[in-house]
């Protein structure tokens, strides 16, 4: 059943408990952008409520308003029936709202404990506050299965653990409503499953949870109700039990979306990438990649699955020429890399390799550049863009326009600052730049991280098209769905090693999940590494 978006009904009005959250007519402008227009929303107490919408639909903005981080231009907010004026996050925290931001609000050099007590120290001196917090956190950890080493430095923790810290932070402040903005974007399936168990435990203890995500399967799996946003407006409120993936996708994007990737069987050609016994040690002396051998042939997609932090990122960086290798050998399109002859990213590109990095903003783009400048990053020495001394601005501009229209980057404005594009569109700029080179080998890391499903569809299609055109693709992703639906062969990494290989068609979530935990199951066509 569909509930009209504009009028959160008084359906629950008969019940005694007021809704945990009620928003009415909330508006928010950012300069010329009307990020939230006349939003209304009702979240029943003690439920898990999903919010979905395309990139830039206004979800994060709305939640930031609810958390008092941004101030709404107009509108009414009630929490557990009490009207609230949210002038600062302190007001929201006081009203029992906790929020886990899309970009974590953690101080990297601090310990977990310090991060948790920041803002809730319980007195002018740290000592007693920290001690009290330690006791309270140990209790919370036990109650909800949120184990963290309280004295670890946060910056050195994996994202999944950092997220637990964020949740602990909110709970420590006594949150009765917990908002999570794209919490699963960077988690492995196992971590996600674990997070959902935490959610259910919290809900059972009366905590209300608002979950923002792009992953519709998660909505179906864990929420009771879901609201859909599009272009700054609420377009629907639904009961999860009464809707379907397809309906949600259509509501979000405003058109029908293909949820499965369609592809033909691969026709692999000659070997393009050959990695032999590669090892890599990071600056702290930890071995990150340990004797990895693999090969990728033209016209196939090889996926690397694994829990984040098991060496996939470092492997990709080494192949791209960003990290030096300590042992082994890389042969790529006729070029060779050994520890004695390291190559930088420029030389690797010259061999015919292109690289879509895992973290586009940190690595793939320069936020302060205009889009046309970001669109030549790594290829800025290409003779096509350069004279003997000066660059050719008109050619760069034309090239950027062409890429933008081919990849439907919105807005199609080559002189807009890169940082002012939404995450999904930034991703498209990077993809366009790398894929339009028609490389012999394409390295892709997390191609759809944080991207809405409309864009996911487009990116997946493009990757398949690349493969069919004879490009060798090495795909690293923590999304098992993505890996399974795109890859012709899947390698699984665990603690820096490749534990096994599965043919894409035969991989099940269970097999992969076990392998990612380091266990190689007997059945299902798994080959041990060479």
């Amino acid at each position: 059943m569909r509930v009209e978006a504009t009028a959160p009904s008084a359906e629950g009005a008969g019940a005694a408990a007021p809704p945990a959250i009620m928003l009415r007519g909330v508006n928010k402008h950012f300069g010329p952008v009307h990020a939230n227009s006349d939003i209304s929303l009702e979240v029943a107490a003690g439920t898990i409520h999903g919010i979905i919408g395309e990139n830039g639909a206004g979800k994060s903005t709305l939640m930031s308003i609810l958390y008092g981080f941004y101030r709404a231009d107009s509108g009414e907010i009630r929490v557990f029936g009490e009207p609230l004026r949210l002038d600062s996050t302190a007001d929201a925290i006081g009203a029992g709202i906790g929020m886990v931001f899309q970009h974590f609000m953690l101080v990297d050099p601090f310990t977990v404990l310090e991060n948790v007590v920041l803002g809730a120290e319980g007195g002018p001196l740290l000592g007693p506050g920290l001690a009290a917090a330690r006791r309270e956190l140990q209790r919370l950890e036990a109650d909800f299965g949120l184990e963290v080493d309280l004295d670890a430095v946060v910056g050195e923790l994996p994202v999944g653990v950092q997220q637990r810290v964020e949740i602990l932070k909110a709970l420590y402040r006594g949150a009765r409503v917990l908002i999570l903005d794209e919490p699963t974007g960077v988690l492995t399936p196992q971590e996600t499953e674990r997070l959902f168990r935490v959610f259910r435990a919290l809900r059972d203890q009366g905590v209300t949870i608002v979950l923002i995500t792009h992953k519709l399967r998660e909505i179906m799996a864990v929420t009771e109700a879901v609201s859909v946003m599009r272009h700054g407006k609420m377009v629907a409120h639904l009961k999860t039990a009464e809707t379907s993936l397809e309906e949600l996708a259509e509501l979000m994007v405003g058109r029908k979306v293909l949820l499965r990737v369609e592809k033909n069987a691969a026709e692999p050609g000659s070997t393009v990438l050959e990695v032999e016994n590669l090892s890599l040690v990071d600056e702290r002396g930890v071995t990150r990649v340990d004797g990895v051998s693999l090969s990728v042939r033209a016209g196939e997609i090889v996926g690397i699955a694994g829990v984040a932090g098991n060496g996939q990122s470092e492997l990709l960086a080494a192949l791209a020429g960003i990290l030096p290798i300590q042992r082994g050998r890389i042969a790529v399109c006729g070029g060779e890399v050994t520890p004695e002859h390291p190559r930088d990213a420029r030389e690797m590109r010259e061999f015919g390799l292109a690289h879509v990095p895992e973290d586009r903003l940190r690595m793939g783009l320069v936020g302060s550049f205009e889009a046309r400048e970001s669109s030549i990053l790594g290829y800025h020495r290409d003779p096509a863009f350069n004279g003997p001394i000066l660059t050719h601005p008109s050619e760069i501009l034309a090239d950027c326009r062409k890429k933008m229209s081919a990849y439907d980057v919105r807005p199609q404005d080559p002189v807009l600052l890169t940082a002012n594009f939404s995450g999904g569109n930034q991703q498209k700029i990077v993809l366009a730049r790398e894929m339009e080179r028609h490389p012999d080998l394409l390295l892709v890391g997390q191609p759809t991280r944080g991207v809405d499903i409309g864009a996911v569809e487009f990116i997946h299609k493009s990757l398949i098209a690349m493969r069919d055109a004879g490009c060798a693709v090495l795909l690293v992703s923590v999304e098992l769905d993505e890996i399974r639906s795109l890859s012709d062969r899947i390698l699984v990494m665990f603690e820096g090693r490749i534990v096994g290989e599965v043919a894409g068609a035969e991989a099940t979530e269970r097999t992969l999940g076990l392998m990612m935990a380091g266990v190689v199951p007997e059945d299902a066509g798994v080959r041990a590494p060479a």
Partner: protein
Amino acid sequence: MEEAFLLSVLTLDATLRVATPLVLASLAGLFAERSGIVDIGLEGKMLGSAFAAAAVAAVSGSAWLGLVAGIGVSIALALLHGFACITHRGNHVVSGVAINILTAGLTVMVGIAWFSRGGQTPALPDGARFTAIVWPGAQALAGIPVFGTLYKELLSGHNILVYVAFLAVPLTWWVVYRTRFGLRLRAVGEHPEAVDSAGISVAGLRYRAMICCGVLCGIAGAYLSTAQNAGFGRDMTAGQGYIALAALIFGKWRPVPAMLACLLFGFLDAIAARLQGVELPMIGAIPVQFIQALPYVLTVVLLAGFIGKAVAPRAIGEPYVKER
């Protein structure tokens, strides 16, 4: 032998004197920079405070009133810096440079207007200065070898602000690492959004950090004009604010290493003073300019050779803007 020992102790003694304003100023810079505010204006704050302290001490005859005035002026300048950088998102370096230039002119101008001595304040009599405090028994113990000398020459016989400066180091450490304010201070320089989302005012915190910075710079300035010297003179800070900033970076924005860096600068300075004109064995007399450049050269060498990369507080110099 004994003479050589005495000489080294006296060199260390000089090191303490020279390092005192540097220690205070770099701790001041620590508060500012840990909160995310670049403070190239330490120089100006010290200068303003030195003038105010000397002027008030000269008029009132009280060094303590001078100290209060110096701290007051320094805090005012720190808040001006905060007003520009925190409230109005101004460029931190430009604001610091402006404050340095402004105080260089204003101190002399006001000095001429008040005292008609070309910007100098009248020389302060001992009563209006912080003078040496002799520790009990210093003379009596002087006879004891080594310890007596150390006690009399190194520990005893400084003015109170020297002791204040070196006590300020553990105090700063304690504030920064053991108090709520310190935790928030460190957080706001690293990740202001995190502080904001925890319900703490970023601007409020940074202003408070600037006040701490002002207090310490104020003491440093007062030390220059009412303890180390006996009056204010044009541009009397002579670049010490910049050296203090260098020491802060050298010490990687931590109190104790910053103090050690200041002591190092002071020590190199003291050594350089004593090496001038001395004929070194094998080498002979070295041109005085080389000796004068020695502290700077050695700093560079030490920096390049032994001190790793200094990583600044992550949000330093970035104005905090919530809604772009």
